[in-house]
């Protein structure tokens, strides 16, 4: 698959940057002329991934989050969200719906379930103590 364009942004893991990440991604994807639902799906998935970094990867400090977005031939979008935080000891467990190590009163534990529902493919790789990388892929079908 031939890559047509790419952008890479690193920002501080502050919750105010969740909106920045969505807005920056939306601005980059304008060139694909996505539909409103397509863009909403991708923004939601990225918001979940970035929030996971802020809440879980850096529980007691502000760390860096890197977002890479790439456009490939055929309208395929691939986004990677990388942190250098605590890592995930059991990825399968972390991806179970309703599972959360965060504040169970306020967190729904749906982050990965949303990513899987709204994107075509979700890949997670993680090393405890070194960080986590989430790769989100979606093909934007041509407008009817």
């Amino acid at each position, binding site marked *: 698959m031939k890559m047509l364009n790419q952008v890479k942004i690193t920002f501080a893991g502050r*919750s*105010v940057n*969740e*909106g920045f990440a*969505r807005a920056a991604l939306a601005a980059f994807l304008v060139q694909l002329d996505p539909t409103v*639902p397509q863009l*909403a799906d991708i*923004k*939601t998935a990225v*918001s*979940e991934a970035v*929030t996971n970094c*802020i*809440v879980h990867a850096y529980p007691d400090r502000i760390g860096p989050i890197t977002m890479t977005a790439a456009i490939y031939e055929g309208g395929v979008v691939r986004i990677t969200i990388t942190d250098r935080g605590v890592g995930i000891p059991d990825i399968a467990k972390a991806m179970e719906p309703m599972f959360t190590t965060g504040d169970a*009163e*306020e*967190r*729904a534990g*749906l*982050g990965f*379930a*949303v990513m899987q*529902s709204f994107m075509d493919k979700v890949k997670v790789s993680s090393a405890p103590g070194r960080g986590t990388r989430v790769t989100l892929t979606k093909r934007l079908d041509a407008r009817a």
Partner: protein
Amino acid sequence: MAKVTFIPGSGTLAAYLSGEIDHHAAQSLRKEIDAQIDDRLPELLTLDFSGVTFMDSSGVGLILGRGRHIGALGGRLTVQNPPRAVRRMLDLAHITYA
């Protein structure tokens, strides 16, 4: 940037949410709504999502958390008027709405 506007009634409290609800916004919305619940002790809290332009699963956590809070005080919560993007999130979380 999310906002919430309250309209109290007799035993009821309506909270009209607007803007983008993510983890950042949910933190302040939670405090504002809980303060109103604690102050007015409504039997019914209605969360209206008609002005919400974006919501991730933090919004689901916001709803579930407020439901627990008002439930512990003997009240109940309903969700109304979610736009399409919000409906998708609510359906995924099995949250019913009017």
